[in-house]
């Protein structure tokens, strides 16, 4: 396999309101494909990334996927929108059963709906992000120790991921902090809302002291901007405060009030820090989708183990694979193909010596509040995976 070229299709929005996120991820993929190619990975393969714009639409995604497969690409990556990820899983299952010998593998970099590795789990799907339940587990563990939080408002995007955030927030808060009152809950359309002022007015009227939201991209940017404009002073617990555009929207007005729960953060130090600085140098943008590094690491190790770049062999090799990545040793759990990894809770504040990385030149950063080890945030799975026979 040494010297072979492995082509990965990245199918994500590259236009529209969520375009900035997809474009950032495409650049991240290309950046790290360069870094990890050849000697950069144990298998010695060359990674090549092809971007497809799915306009955040499931059917466009499948059309793009067909095109990619038609061009001989066998590794598909996507992550923006769990709904679409679900559609890909089904399409991949279908394709692989109808076209033996042309199997493709789905590398999910960010779609975090827990169902994808539970009720809808598939052998061909690998998730490198931490799913919603894991993140909420960690987040609520933190909230348990914060007595000032009494009234919580849930605002989320009206689709798979948003539903899950709301669901797990209610479930886990009820379990860990039964005294907390959910004073309001809203689901708004995904990537459609341009004016969040009415929602913010509602949040303020509810008297909430904290907001939990799984929003990302423009849906978070505009929400926080509207909240700042309207003078909202409560805390935000988010999943994606670091994504393109959001740091600027947070600005100094949100200092100390915005939290992010994720599997990475701005000030990881070490090799990661040099990469991030270099990335910013090159693209004038911040690298935040750390799972891309996981993916390339995992592929390299798996291809070496399988001695092949064949998708089926690589899939088998990845299932249950333990490998090292930027946050230490991680494991692709065999039972459901959910990566087990540590999580980090960070808070928005001014940069200082320990927290030097400032996204979008805001002079602010996300500073580590607490690290959760993989086992703390790990959640059980109900996946009953159908495994094809391993090739000989």
């Amino acid at each position, binding site marked *: 396999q040494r010297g072979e070229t492995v082509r990965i299709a990245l199918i994500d929005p590259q236009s529209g309101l969520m375009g900035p996120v997809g474009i950032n991820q495409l650049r991240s993929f290309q950046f790290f494909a360069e870094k990890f190619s050849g000697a950069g990975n144990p298998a010695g393969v060359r990674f090549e990334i092809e971007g497809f714009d799915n306009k955040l639409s499931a059917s466009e995604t499948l059309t793009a996927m067909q095109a990619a497969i038609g061009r001989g690409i066998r590794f598909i990556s996507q992550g923006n929108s769990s*709904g679409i990820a679900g*559609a890909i899983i089904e399409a991949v299952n279908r394709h692989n059963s109808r076209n033996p010998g042309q199997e493709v593998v789905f590398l999910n970099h960010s779609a975090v709906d827990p169902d994808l590795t539970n009720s809808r789990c598939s052998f061909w799907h690998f998730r490198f992000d931490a799913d919603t339940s894991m993140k909420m587990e960690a987040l609520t563990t933190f909230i348990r120790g914060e007595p000032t939080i009494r009234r919580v408002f849930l605002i989320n995007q009206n689709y798979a991921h948003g539903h899950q955030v709301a669901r797990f927030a209610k479930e886990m808060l009820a379990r860990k902090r039964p005294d907390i009152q959910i004073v309001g809950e809203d689901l708004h359309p995904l990537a459609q809302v341009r004016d969040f002022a009415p929602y913010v007015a509602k949040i303020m009227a509810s008297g909430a002291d904290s907001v939990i939201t799984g929003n990302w991209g423009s849906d978070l940017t505009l929400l926080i901007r509207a909240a700042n404009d309207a003078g909202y002073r409560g805390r935000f617990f988010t999943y994606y405060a670091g994504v393109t555009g959001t740091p600027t929207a947070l600005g100094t007005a949100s200092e100390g009030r915005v939290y992010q729960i994720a599997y990475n953060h701005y000030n990881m130090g070490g090799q990661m820090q040099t990469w991030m600085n270099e990335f910013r140098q090159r693209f004038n943008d911040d690298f935040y989708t750390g799972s891309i590094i996981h993916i390339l690491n995992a592929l390299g190790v798996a291809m070496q183990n399988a001695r092949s770049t064949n998708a089926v062999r690589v899939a088998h090799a990845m299932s249950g694979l333990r490998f090292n990545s930027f946050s230490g040793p991680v494991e692709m759990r065999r039972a459901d193909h959910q990566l087990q990894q540590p999580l980090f809770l960070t808070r928005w504040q001014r940069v200082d010596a320990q927290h030097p990385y400032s996204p979008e030149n805001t002079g602010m950063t996300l500073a580590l509040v607490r690290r959760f080890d993989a086992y703390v945030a790990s959640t059980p799975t109900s996946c009953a995976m159908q495994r094809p026979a391993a090739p000989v």
Partner: protein
Amino acid sequence: MTATKYYQFRPINVGRWFIWSLFALVLLLAPLVFDSSIAISMMAQMGIAIIACLSFNMLLGQGGMLSFGHAVYAGLGTYVAMHALLLLGDAGLPVPAVALIPLIGGFAGLFFALLFGYVTTKKAGTAFAMITLGVGELIFIASMVFFIFFGGEAGVSADRVIGEPFWGISFGPLIEVYYLIAVYTFLCVALMFAYTRTPLGRIINAVRDNPERVEFIGYDPQTVRYLVFMIAGFFAGIAGGMAAVLFEIVTSEVVGPIRSGSYLLFAFLGGVTFFFGPIIGGILMVLAFVMFSEITKAWMLYLGLIFVFMVMYAPGGIAGLIMMNLRLAMFGRLGELWASYLGLGATALALLVSMGALIEMIYHLQLGTAMGDVVPFLGMSLNTLDLDVWFGAVFVALTSFGLFELCRRSFSQQWAAIQTDIEKEIKRRETT
């Protein structure tokens, strides 16, 4: 009297048989000529687009009803067909049942046209256009809000293979789906053509031209519009149902305003004044969306420009252009124009290529600088940092534009002269 009738009818019918057989033959043999999976998928999509555009034209071209929400009927047809496909799978029906899915889509389209058409067709003209726009947006937004039926942004997907192959057919392989669609396409086109030759198909023309007078010859224009609307909805639904089988997934854009707009745009490009115009439109639609968009990122810009120029200079669409030249040919005058056409073609090509190069380079600067400075264009490599390339492109564009304009002027004079002659000729024939 009877003798003339005989002679009038006979040759036309022969021609008609010939055309329809040719059409069937093309549908049958096309996948043998273009046999890549992309090509077959495109041809299947063309069948769908043709039916959708034709059904759209039942409203616009034949009925004078400008609909901004035609995708609703095709799209809801797709959704219902998709749910039906899911049910079929669950119910364990035999494979041939899949062949009926498009029909289910058709009935869904009919049903929704019956439902919404009742209010939309009360009015004609601008009010009609606006209600269809409203209903279209309503359904589009509803499709993003109601999850059970529309499946949210993930859409609804189903497996078209519902069981073991039946006579070797499982509808899994693309080619089998293509032939299913081809059969439907042929039947639907034939039916839609036949419809134009029926009393209702003619009265709707009268309603288009002068709804007021229609009332005074005994017809209720609202009823006429409503009936036609339902028939159009039915065919749109069939197109939608076929899409369900072909794509196995449906998301909300199929009922959205952009899709409705494309039907309008391409039906118009093809030409709404002739029956076959939208067929051309449907084929172009797929070419544009699938192939054009592969070739260039700027395809929407080209499309918009082509469209605007078509409306300005050839409002009859491509079908109109064809028929105009056919008329010339019938009077034996087409030959005179070849030099002009050649001049026009050559200068237009030069203009197109140079403009294309410019647009491509600008697009590249905008979108792809991270991927290097060189744009591949028609086998050339254009370096966006090289000023000479820019200068050359601009120069070629300007000169070819000037030459084109010269050619166009002489052409339009020539054209006008020929038309005058033909008018005279017709007058002469009429009087003799």
